[in-house]
């Protein structure tokens, strides 16, 4: 399966390599660099590159390419999914997954990679097991280790790997037993010029942070589980119970994990729901014009809340890639700050909170390259925002029960709506 892994930074240097079978020369990456050069943007490097003797499957995250070398047929998603798991693990261990962090922790990284694959086949990818095998570095532990020479490799053997609930460590102990669940929904939408919704869908996740002693068995039930008709689960969730009763029943992993993710699309053909299933929480009034022959363009943008269920829209950030012909902008925001990068032509406006009484707007003019013809496309506007304490789809958790342990856990549930890929075409 996976032969070797090369980590390549954005400037095209290989800064780490690991081989699980016999060593593959790093010159194999030259094919990758070729593709990298050909691509206009870093994202445009094709994920799968065939070379005469190998296949390169790469993943770009945090501006690092994780390039896996494959020698024979394997489902590409298998490799891609695994590489993303590796990145997730690094992020989990080091807080960030940057070149510097990886270089600083190269020994831990190596130990992790060694445990995650055996002969190129995934062995232990559950973070709970890995953490039992290799303790994540903390500043304190690093200091202690350098002084005492002790190690960050777990002394105990990873019993979790053998257990029937492989995702959970054994012998978990907490003084404060708590379980938090965050219901986070992201709304993806494309709004057309006239303000009508072309497509809108909600991608929701329930992220959990469970710190409970022992082997708790949790059940989570929803007020309106019918909303969830397209879900994927953490392996700990008992699928049969979900099928039968629409209740999430699971022995949670220890710590942070994604319990489930779901998808509510506007196209779900539910008899009881109208087409306007996904309520768009903000609207944008825009007027962006370029006139033929003039070197000036007008730019006007006003944001307003819409169907927010009384909750405030916060952390609003508007960004737009203006056409190449735009030299500079001269705009006035009624609130927040805006920046325009004349090189990348990226306009971004940090709005902050939307006050329904006094709608934020950004108005002014753009100066265009003299003599250049008018750009034929108006820029699309990307919007980010957050709405606290509400899940747009209306999903509500009914209750959380714990069995199997005697203590009483502290339980908390938080809702949040965010903009995902929210685009307004102008």
């Amino acid at each position, binding site marked *: 399966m996976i032969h070797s892994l090369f980590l390549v930074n954005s400037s095209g240097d290989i800064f780490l390599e690991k081989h699980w079978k016999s060593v593959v020369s790093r010159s194999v990456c030259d094919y990758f660099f070729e593709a990298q050069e050909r691509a206009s943007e870093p*994202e*445009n490097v094709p994920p799968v590159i065939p070379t005469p003797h190998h296949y390169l499957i790469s993943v770009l995250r945090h501006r690092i390419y994780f390039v896996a070398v494959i020698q024979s047929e394997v489902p590409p998603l298998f490799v891609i999914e695994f590489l993303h798991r590796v990145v997730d693990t690094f992020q989990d261990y080091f807080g960030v997954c940057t070149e510097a962090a990886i270089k600083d*922790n190269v020994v831990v990284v190596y130990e992790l990679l060694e445990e995650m694959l055996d002969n190129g086949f995934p062995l232990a990818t559950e973070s709970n097991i890995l953490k039992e095998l290799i303790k994540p570095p903390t500043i304190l532990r690093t200091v202690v280790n350098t002084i005492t020479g002790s190690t960050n490799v777990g002394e105990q053997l990873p019993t979790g790997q053998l257990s029937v609930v492989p995702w959970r460590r054994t012998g978990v102990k907490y003084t404060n037993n708590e379980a938090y669940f965050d219901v986070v929904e992201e709304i993806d939408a494309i709004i057309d010029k006239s303000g009508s919704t072309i497509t809108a869908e909600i991608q929701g996740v329930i992220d959990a942070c469970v710190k409970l002693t022992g082997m708790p068995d949790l059940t989570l039930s929803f007020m309106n589980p019918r909303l969830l008709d397209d879900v994927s689960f953490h392996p700990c969730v*008992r699928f*049969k119970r979900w099928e039968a009763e629409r209740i999430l*029943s699971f022995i949670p992993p220890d710590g942070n994990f994604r319990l489930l993710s779901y998808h509510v699309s506007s196209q779900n053909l539910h008899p009881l729901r109208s087409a306007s299933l996904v309520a768009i929480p903000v609207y944008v009034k825009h007027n962006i014009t370029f006139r033929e022959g003039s070197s000036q363009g007008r730019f006007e943008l006003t944001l307003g809340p819409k169907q927010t269920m009384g909750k405030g829209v916060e952390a609003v950030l508007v960004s737009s890639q203006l056409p190449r012909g735009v030299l500079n902008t001269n705009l006035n925001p009624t609130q927040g700050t805006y920046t325009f990068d004349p090189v990348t032509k990226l306009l971004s406006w940090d709005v902050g909170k939307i006050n329904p009484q006094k709608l934020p707007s950004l108005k002014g003019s753009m100066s265009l390259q003299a003599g250049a013809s008018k750009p034929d496309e108006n820029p699309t506007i990307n919007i980010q925002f957050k709405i606290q304490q509400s899940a747009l789809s209306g999903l509500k958790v009914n209750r959380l029960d714990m069995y199997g342990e005697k203590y009483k856990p502290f339980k908390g549930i938080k809702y949040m709506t965010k903009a995902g890929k929210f685009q307004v075409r102008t």
Partner: protein
Amino acid sequence: MLSMSTNNLSYNDQGGTDSAVEVGQETTPTSSNAGAGFGLFSVDFKKNDDLKEMLESNKESLKLEAMKRVVGLIAKGKNASELFPAVVKNVASKNIELKKLVYVYLVRYAEEQQDLALLSISTFQRALKDPNQLIRASALRVLSSIRVPIIVPIMMLAIKEAASDMSPYVRKTSAHAIQKLYSLDQDQKDLLIEVIEKLLKDKSTLVAGSVVMAFEEVCPDRIDLIHKNYRKLCNLLVDVEEWGQVVIISMLTRYARTQFTSPWKEDGVFDEHSERAFYESDEEKTRNEPEAKPYMMDPDHRLLLRNTKPLLQSRNTAVVMSVAQLYWHLAPKNEVSIVTKSLVRLLRSHREVQYIVLQNIASMSIQRKGMFEPYMKSFYVRSTDATHIKSLKLEILTSLANEANISTVLREFQTYVKSQDKEFAAGTIQAIGRCATNISEVTDTCLNGLVLLLSNRDETVVAESVVVIRKLLQTQPTQHSDIIKHMAKLFDNITVPMARASILWLMGEYCERVPKIAPDVLRKMAKSFTSEEDIVKLQTVNLAAKLYLTNSKQTKLLTQYILNLGKYDQNYDIRDRTRFIRQLIVPNDKNGALSKYAHRILLAPKPAPLLESAYKDRDRYQLGTLSHTINTKASGYLELSDWPAVAPDQSVRNVEVIEPVKEWAPSLWKTGKSKPAKSSDDKFYSDSGEEEEEGSGSSSSEDGSSSSEESGSDAESRVENSSQSSEESDESSSQSEKSSSESESDSEKKKRKTKTPLQKKTVKPTAKDGDSDGNVAKEASSSSAEESSSDSESDSDAHTDSDSGTEHKKKTKSKAKPKVEVKSKKEVSLLDLGDFTPAPVTQLKSSILSPSLLGDLEGMSLSNVSSTIQVSGPAFVPEKSHDLLHRMTGKGLSAQYQFPRQPCLYQPTMVSVQISLTNTSDHPLEQIHIGDRSPTGLNIHCFNTVECLEPEASVTVFMGIDFNDSTQAANFQLCTKEDHFSVSIQPAVGDLFLPITMTELDFRKEQGKLLGMNESSATITMAAENMTSQPISRPVATVANLGVVPSGQDDIHRFAGKTASSGAVVLVTVELRESSTALITINTEKSVMGSMLLRDLKQALAQA
């Protein structure tokens, strides 16, 4: 090829200089960082000397420090091989981290330093014998990773040994090692296949994924090894770790394509029908109608589809994709669409995932538009998508476009055409072209739109439009001379060679429609000929030739001029073409023959180009594979075979199924997701395991009574299973000695493990184990003959073979009796569709914790559960609940209890009690819990305090009570925040039992031990209906929680159970006599309970 290798070379050079530069750069910061734990990365070559010293020092910390730096070197790809001797000495270090780092080093460099690597081997050999399974596993892992050919025999030995290790984890490691050894030495193939064969039989979910991986790598063509494990693999699938699932699913896809007939031949009706038959479990139908139907899905085929379906919900995108491809390649056409939603969900994932998924959707959407059409909007392009994602989405949108949605699609395309990403805009124009050809209604609209685009400012857009228009015009050239004229006008402004060439070609092809313009264009071209691109020059020559033929008057000179220019062109293609054209069109004496045909040659009607998807031909590759992604055959790609015209013998898969299911079916009380798997085989499709079990049981015991059921006698059921299954395989595959001895050792191994399972109650503890060992083996060989006969009978029961009349007679005979049993189960099995546990309906809301937790704890491995006599699920759960606290006395709190008859989770000796608390008052009740109890010694497992119970709300809680095998009431206080209520739970004697399954022989043996004092009996007159329509089991099961023991005689019914607290066996025999009397005999050492039970039974049977 040549250019490739030179390329390579030059890159290598570059790489070399690169690293040299790196080294140079790094020398500077090192000095300051030296020694710091995290500064490791900047170690350079000069420091290697002191590394050696550090490695050879006595201090662990120094060694560790050194090893960390060495690993840093390896990570950077620097050569650290000269340290090998110093490093290898530390292989036996006590420090775990040091040891691990040494392993890393060893695996990396052993290949280069083979002799020195041998020094470490003995350490691993020792570790292979370590009592700790994890140490054994890791030793095997490293040993097999050392790529030194000389140790192949040692590896082989280690693998063989590990393959029969007790620990599934070690076995898993050995499966991994198989692949490593195979890549090191292919000559070991045959030996390795033997190991694979053995590991394939393994029932642990840990092993399954890894061994299938090894199978795929070493001997993917040995499909025959899979037959016997097929059903097991299907059933285990849900519980295998996610990476293993991917591998197993893709293997099973290939397998299914060789073993089952195509479900696609027939139209949907039959598919639906078979599904219905399946869901209804209408055995009768399945059995009688197969001849009437042309296609009937093989139950195993269905099993695979069913068991993979839940995996569509996996968080692992690779798993979802592999299920999707399995459905695509195996499912009836009308079922494929269930994967749509999940695939669309994956589009929200990372860019790379999107890329692969979109590729696959692109392939699918060509063949099956309908599948993705409802989700069309998910493929709308966002400005932030990467270019290759955009073009894939375009591809899909184009494939999905039809008459109904084309207007929406075109509107969307209009936005894309204006995109700043010009490559994408060009792609959109091609897409419009494809839509125009595919959907004739919009051809004109598209064409007009494209003509409008000709005035676009962007050159690439215009060029692409020209090319697409050219293709469109070719399909219907008649009425479009306007467009051609328009393009001729634009000709001067267009600079993109491809577009110019296209216009020239159009002019030439349709020169008769634009007789005035064409010569003028040629004139212009003559002027600029020398400065044009090659492709334009070629088309100019073509145009000249065509005009010469149609309109030689005006263009003769121009043509000659151009041909002369072409003759001296630098490009030989153009020179050749010119020469050819000249000879063809200008008639001279020598070759006049050909020039007669010049007109026909040059102006022949040409077929219009087909505008079709680039993904059209990808369907020759299996979806989801690397080969599909790169559209060439990747090395190691395994072809998906076509469906066989006639299904190969399906009975090859039969072997092990029948027995395990019988044993399992009763014990399936646990919910857990692990469950779906276990009971499914062809029994699924018949009504219930029970029925067949009794059928085969009765027929076999009639002819000899050393039937399969009895062979295992006291042995734990699991051992029995495995031995029987291997016996059966003996019969079919004739390797009898070997595998039966294997099964013996298996059974012994499992026995050692029996102590572990948490929840199984051993009724007869180890005392019996001794003789059962012998029993199994002995009976195994002796009873095989009878068994095979009884087996084949039950087989044909399950399948739809039409057999001889006698067979049928037997069937009907065996069927008559258990009918009611089936009925009582039916409500369960309706719910059961998803292989849900036969948990009683009433309980669904509340009881779950217990069964499902246990299910999880135990579900992992099929092999390690066992007890002498298996506790099984209740045959019947009375829904009758008793008042615990009336709402009047409870000041609004009312409580009812009932016995769910499930084994108690908290302690095996307890009886579980389900209590429903209801608040009938108008204020919330707080802190409902259990207070004092009497007798004080009473062992109660309280439910967790109910914090708050809202008015009108009710909650169901579970508690466990150890009644100590007496019907004495358990008294305790039910407390709320303000009040205490004394309540008592009075169990009926029947609720103090737990049902167990045993064989008839066991039953008799036990009965033999419980005679005299321990036996109580009574003769009663049965109520009429008990004699006829209803079997005895129903009323008995209602009264007491006992399990049915299969009985050989029609008129004797046996039931077995054990008391919850002390585990004493309770045996009930009901013997029907003439004139509606019956003799009830109860054997138990708890004689008080026996007599109480007798009284209850008498009552129930007499009146019911």
